[in-house]
């Protein structure tokens, strides 16, 4: 996959860094009591969102989850408005009405995050049906966790996408845990990808910490979808670096397991590969890192300086 254009590879690397730095900043701000509510960080899973979105075009759609910052950024959302939303500001994507768990940017096909686990799946299928009926060549990427794969919506949604051959790519972010619950305690199978058999669609597994592996599988699924051959279920094996949310210390995870996965850090791996293969040289990497850090600082500044919405705005936007 390293025969991709340098520009493309650099862009993927940059996006992964954006997510990482963004999330680290959110974590800091949270610790300083500047983020209201709860947060679910995407740190450690960057290769999934970036690998998938790199296979999409701007007009394609994604649906997202409670752990959605990474999906937004990978799909091209503005960092400033994303951060502002998370801080509950008027300038945020949703004018402060949505917050961390409900960010959307319809202008880039980011159809929004739902905080009801699994609820986004039929919505993604509906977007796929809409594409079919409108006869565009768009596709939808639907993100969800392995925990969500036990919801009825997973079953009903994928089945419908399959029978109607809709251009939907189901991306299972298998980070092994749903809150404190290890996958092995809530399903009797090893691979979520095997559930594809129940719907007569391909189920494939990707190393979710290898952005190029994810990209490759996503690209195949996108091609299949655009050709009208229907959906694909892609399971990306990955891991979240932090706890589930807020202050979760994630003590339910064995230390060795955490260390094993930290060693597989998708950003570290991709960076090393890019350097090794000579796609980028050290100074280029450092430049990107500096640029991204500055971008994030700017986003934080923008968000911090933005005003809160006026209280009465709570009454707006209920009906169109």
């Amino acid at each position, binding site marked *: 996959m390293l025969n991709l254009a340098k520009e493309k590879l650099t862009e993927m690397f940059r996006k992964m860094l954006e997510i990482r730095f963004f999330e680290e900043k959110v974590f800091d701000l949270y610790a300083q009591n500047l983020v209201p509510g709860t947060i679910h960080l995407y740190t450690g899973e960057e290769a999934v969102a970036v690998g998938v979105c790199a296979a999409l075009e701007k007009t394609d759609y994604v649906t997202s989850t409670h752990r959605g910052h990474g999906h937004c950024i990978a799909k091209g959302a503005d960092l400033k408005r994303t951060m502002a939303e998370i801080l509950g500001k008027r300038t945020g994507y949703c004018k402060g*009405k949505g917050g961390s768990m409900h960010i959307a940017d*319809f202008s880039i096909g980011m159809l929004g995050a739902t905080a009801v686990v699994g609820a986004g799946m039929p919505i993604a299928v509906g977007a796929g049906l809409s594409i079919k*009926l409108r006869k565009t060549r768009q596709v939808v990427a639907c993100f969800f966790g392995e925990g969500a794969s036990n919801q009825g919506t997973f079953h009903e949604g994928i089945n419908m996408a399959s029978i109607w051959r809709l251009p939907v790519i189901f991306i299972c972010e298998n980070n092994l845990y749903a809150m404190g619950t290890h996958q092995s305690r809530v399903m009797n199978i090893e691979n979520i990808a095997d559930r594809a058999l129940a719907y007569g669609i391909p189920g494939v597994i990707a190393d979710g910490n290898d952005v190029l592996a994810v990209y490759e599988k996503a690209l195949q699924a996108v091609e299949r979808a655009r050709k009208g051959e229907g959906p694909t279920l892609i399971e990306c094996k990955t891991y979240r670096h932090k706890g589930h949310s807020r202050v979760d210390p994630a003590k339910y995870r064995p230390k060795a397991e955490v260390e094993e996965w930290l060693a597989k850090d998708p950003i570290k791996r991709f960076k090393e590969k890019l350097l090794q293969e000579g796609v980028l040289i050290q100074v280029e990497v450092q430049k990107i890192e500096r640029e991204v850090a500055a971008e994030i600082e700017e986003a934080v500044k923008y968000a911090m300086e933005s005003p809160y919405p006026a209280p009465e705005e709570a009454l707006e936007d209920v009906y169109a």
Partner: protein
Amino acid sequence: MRKIAYREALREALREEMRRDPTVFLLGEDIGKYWGGAFKVTEGLAEEFGEERVRDTPISESAIIGVGVGAAITGMRPVAEIMFGDLTALAMDQIANQAAKIRYMFGGQVKCPLVIRTPFGAGVNIAAHHSQSLEAWFMHVPGLYVAVPSTPYDAKGLLKSAIRGNNPVIFCEHKLLYPVEGEVPEEQYTVPFGVADIKREGEDATIVATLYMVHKALEAAKTLEKEGVSVEVVDPRTLTPLDKQTIINSVKKTGRIVIVSEDCKTAGVSAEIAAIIAEEAIDYLDAPIKRVAEPDTPIPFSPPLEQYVIPDEKAIIKAVKEVV
């Protein structure tokens, strides 16, 4: 004017809107050419518009609505059918948490023009899982509109408005109304949301009623007229938005109100209307507010049991007599 059945009026609305706007499409269980909908509302539409636009689905109520949401926020105008109103319970998350809130949560970025047609109501002996009236659940969900047409005219006009509108609508039909005939003009028209219809004018008492109960209220009013009691029957036609003013104006005139609703009494449609009067028009009242509704039981199967729980003309007459 020509008379057509409620069922046909609905079908005409669907047909006209589908001809007018290519983004309108239907989805639901057995709505297509093999069945035409459990109550035959969509009969013939698959033949005219094809199976792509009149789309049979698996038995997956939650996904039917979720798919509707996804299509609605990406440029389509889906009309989903849930075969029985009781089964909306299976899709409550998609209806109340997704469809209703998606615009608000995202700060007004998107509209969700999804119409959900579903039949409520008892009276055909199909027991507890196929007979409920659950409009009140949906009234309690901001972001949704709730339509409750009682006549073919209103059914057609409101359904067209629902489809053209930009908000999710629970379009409540009633099983017993499907064969009921009424005047419907040949020429196209719409009925706006939020405008009550005074189905009969009167002086001594106001009855507010919806769906099939409008007809029972009108019968009761006829009987009462013979006994010298003049009853005004107000049909809100939509519960959200609710035309409070027309109801209050009627109460100002009559000083008495009986609210008739087929749902279970507690926390039902009639509770909200009673509360509005108690808050905003209590000074015009010359008697307590009366609610006529189903008792708080599931709907039983056996005919004598079922008839016992459905509000009837007698119960309405009794309530009116208690207040005048």
